[in-house]
C-alpha cells in the first residue's frame, strides 16, 4: 500500500483569453507564491516539483519547465515535467502523489501553467486556428494530422457514435450542460467565460464540428494552478501551522486508450475513463459513486463529452447519461453536482493547469471554502482527460477526515 498523501495547499492564477502582461514563468511564480502562502510554507520547504505544461508550441519554448524551475527558486532540487494533452494536470497530480506516496519526497509542489493564446495565424489574423494547429501536432503526424484534425472533431466522434447507438444525447441535453457550466462560472473570479445563457442561446450558436456548436466547446486559456502535496507526518505539521484542513488523496486511477480511436471496438464508450475511474474507485473503496461522492469535477472540454463521462465514470448506465443533466442530478443542489467551478466550459482550458485547477476546486469544496459550496462535502472526484479521442484519463478521489 502507498503511504498516505494529503493536499496541504492550493492556488490558481485566473484563466483568461490572454494575460499579455505576464510571461508563463511569471504566472507560475505568482501561483507558487500564493500556494506557499496558503500552506504557510516557503519555497525552501519544498523538496521537489512536478510541472504540468502541455504544448511547447504554446510556450514557444521547449523544456519550459527548467525556466519555471529557476524562476520560482527551485534550483538544485528535482523537477519533472508532465505532458499528456488535456490530462496533463491530472497526470501531474498523480506523479506528485507517486513521489510522496513512495516516500521519496515529503513535500512536493505540483504546478500547472499554460500560455496558449500567443499562437497567431497571419492569414486569418486569428489565434484559435493557429492554436489548434499547434495541438494538431499531438495527433499522429503520418495518418491523422495531414487531414486537418482539431480537438472538437476528435471529441465529437464518440458522441456521434453514442447518438447512433442509443439515440442520445440530444442537442438540447448538451445545451443544458453548457448552460449549467457557463452559469456555475458566474461569480468565480478564476473563470474566463461566466455567462448566464438559455438553451436557445446555445442551440443558436454556430456549428463548429456537428453537432457541437460554439457554446458546446470550451475556450483555450492562459492561466496557472498549483497544489502542495505532503506525507502524512508532514501534512499534519503543515496544517497545524496553516490552520487548513489536510485533504487526503484516497484513490488514484489512470489508463491510456489507443491513439487510433478507430481501434476501439465501442467508440461510444470512453474506455480510458471506464478503466481509470474503476481503478480509482476500487482504491478508494467506493462502490456506488453517485451516492458516495459529494461533488465532482469532470473534464468537460465539450458538453457531449461530459455526458459520456457520466456513463463511463459509472454515474449512470450506458445510454442513460443524459438523464443526469435532464433531471438536474448534476446541477447545483442535485445529488452529485458536477463542475460547480464552471468546468472547462465555464472557466476555460489552460491545458497544463486545467486538471490541477479542477483539483483545487475539489479541495475548496472539501475545506468548505468553495464559491458554490456543497454543504458538508466529504468526498470529491476529479477526472482529467486528454489526447486523441480522449485517450488519456486520470481519476482521483479526495477526502477530508
Amino acid at each position, binding site marked *: 500500500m502507498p503511504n498516505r498523501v494529503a493536499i496541504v495547499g492550493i492556488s490558481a492564477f485566473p484563466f*483568461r*483569453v*490572454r494575460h*499579455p*502582461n505576464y510571461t508563463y514563468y511569471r504566472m507560475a511564480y505568482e501561483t507558487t507564491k500564493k500556494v506557499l502562502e496558503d500552506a504557510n510554507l516557503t519555497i525552501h520547504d519544498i523538496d521537489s516539483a512536478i510541472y504540468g505544461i502541455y504544448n511547447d*508550441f504554446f510556450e*514557444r519554448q521547449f523544456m519550459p519547465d527548467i525556466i519555471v524551475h529557476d524562476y520560482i527558486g527551485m534550483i538544485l532540487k528535482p523537477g519533472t515535467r508532465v505532458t499528456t494533452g488535456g490530462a496533463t494536470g491530472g497526470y501531474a497530480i498523480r506523479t506528485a502523489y507517486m513521489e510522496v506516496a513512495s516516500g521519496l519526497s515529503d513535500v512536493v509542489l505540483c504546478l500547472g501553467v499554460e500560455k496558449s493564446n500567443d499562437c*497567431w*495565424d*497571419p*492569414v*486569418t489574423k*486569428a489565434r484559435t*486556428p*493557429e492554436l*489548434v*494547429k499547434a495541438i*494538431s501536432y499531438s495527433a*499522429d503526424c*503520418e*495518418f*491523422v494530422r*495531414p*487531414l*486537418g*484534425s*482539431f480537438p*472538437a*472533431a476528435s471529441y*465529437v*466522434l*464518440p458522441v*456521434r*457514435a453514442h447518438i*447512433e447507438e442509443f439515440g442520445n444525447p440530444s442537442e438540447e441535453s448538451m445545451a443544458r450542460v453548457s448552460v449549467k457550466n457557463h452559469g456555475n462560472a458566474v461569480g468565480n473570479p478564476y473563470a*474566463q*467565460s*461566466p*455567462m*448566464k*445563457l438559455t438553451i436557445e*442561446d446555445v442551440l443558436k450558436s*454556430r*456549428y*463548429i*464540428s*456537428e*453537432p*457541437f456548436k460554439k457554446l458546446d466547446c470550451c475556450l483555450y486559456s492562459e492561466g496557472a494552478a498549483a497544489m502542495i502535496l505532503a506525507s502524512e507526518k508532514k501534512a499534519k505539521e503543515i496544517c497545524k501551522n496553516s490552520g487548513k484542513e489536510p485533504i487526503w488523496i484516497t484513490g488514484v486511477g489512470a489508463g491510456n486508450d489507443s491513439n*487510433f*480511436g*478507430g*481501434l476501439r471496438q465501442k*467508440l461510444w464508450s470512453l474506455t480510458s475513463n471506464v478503466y481509470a475511474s474503476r481503478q480509482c474507485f476500487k482504491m478508494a473503496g467506493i462502490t456506488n459513486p453517485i451516492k458516495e461522492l459529494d461533488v465532482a469535477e469532470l473534464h468537460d472540454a465539450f458538453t457531449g463529452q461530459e455526458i459520456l463521462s457520466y456513463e463511463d465514470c459509472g454515474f449512470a448506465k450506458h445510454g442513460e447519461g443524459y438523464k443526469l443533466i435532464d433531471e438536474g442530478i448534476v446541477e447545483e443542489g442535485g445529488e452529485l453536482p458536477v463542475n460547480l467551478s464552471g468546468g472547462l466550459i465555464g472557466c476555460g482550458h489552460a491545458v497544463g493547469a486545467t486538471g490541477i485547477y479542477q483539483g483545487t476546486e475539489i479541495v475548496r469544496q472539501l475545506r468548505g471554502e468553495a464559491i458554490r459550496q456543497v454543504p458538508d462535502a466529504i468526498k470529491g472526484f476529479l477526472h482529467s482527460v486528454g489526447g486523441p479521442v480522449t485517450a488519456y484519463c486520470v481519476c482521483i478521489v479526495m477526502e477530508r477526515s
Partner: protein
Amino acid sequence: MADRANEEHEEFLEYYDEMTIHYLYSVGELTKFFKEIRDNGKLFGTRCTKCGFGYFPPRLNCHKCYVPCEWVELSGKGEVIAGTICRFGVSNFTDKLPITIAFIKMDEMDMAIRHTILMSEDECKLENLKRGTRVKVQFKPKEQREGRITDFYFVLDK
C-alpha cells in the same frame, strides 16, 4: 453575455515569430503502404499472422500477439462508424471548409481509420453520415500523388 475577452490590459509589446524545422524523414516499414498509394493507386492494410486482426492504418507487428503482420490488399470499400462535419478548422485548412471527417472501417479490416469524405454541397449533412453508410476510396490523379495519406479520400458509395 459578458465573457472576459475584452478586459483591459497595461501596455505590452508583441512580436512575430514562428517555429520551423525542416525534415527529410523516412517512413520506415510503411514504405510499401505509401509506395502502393503513389505508384499504383492501391490501398494495403495488414493482418496479424496469428490472431488475424486487420490493421488499417497498417502496422507491421500485432500489439496483442507480438508477432509480425502481413500485407493485405484492400478493395477500397468500407463503411462509416461515426462522422462529423467540421465548419471550423486548423489555420492551414480554413479555406477548405466544410470538411467531413469520419471513422471508416474498410470491409476487410477490423479497425477504422479517421479520414475525409468528400461530399457535394447537397450531400454534406449529418443524415448522410450515419453509421453503416457505404463509402469507397478515390485517389487523386497520379501526377498529384506524393505517397501521402492525403493522396486519397472517400466518397459515398451509392
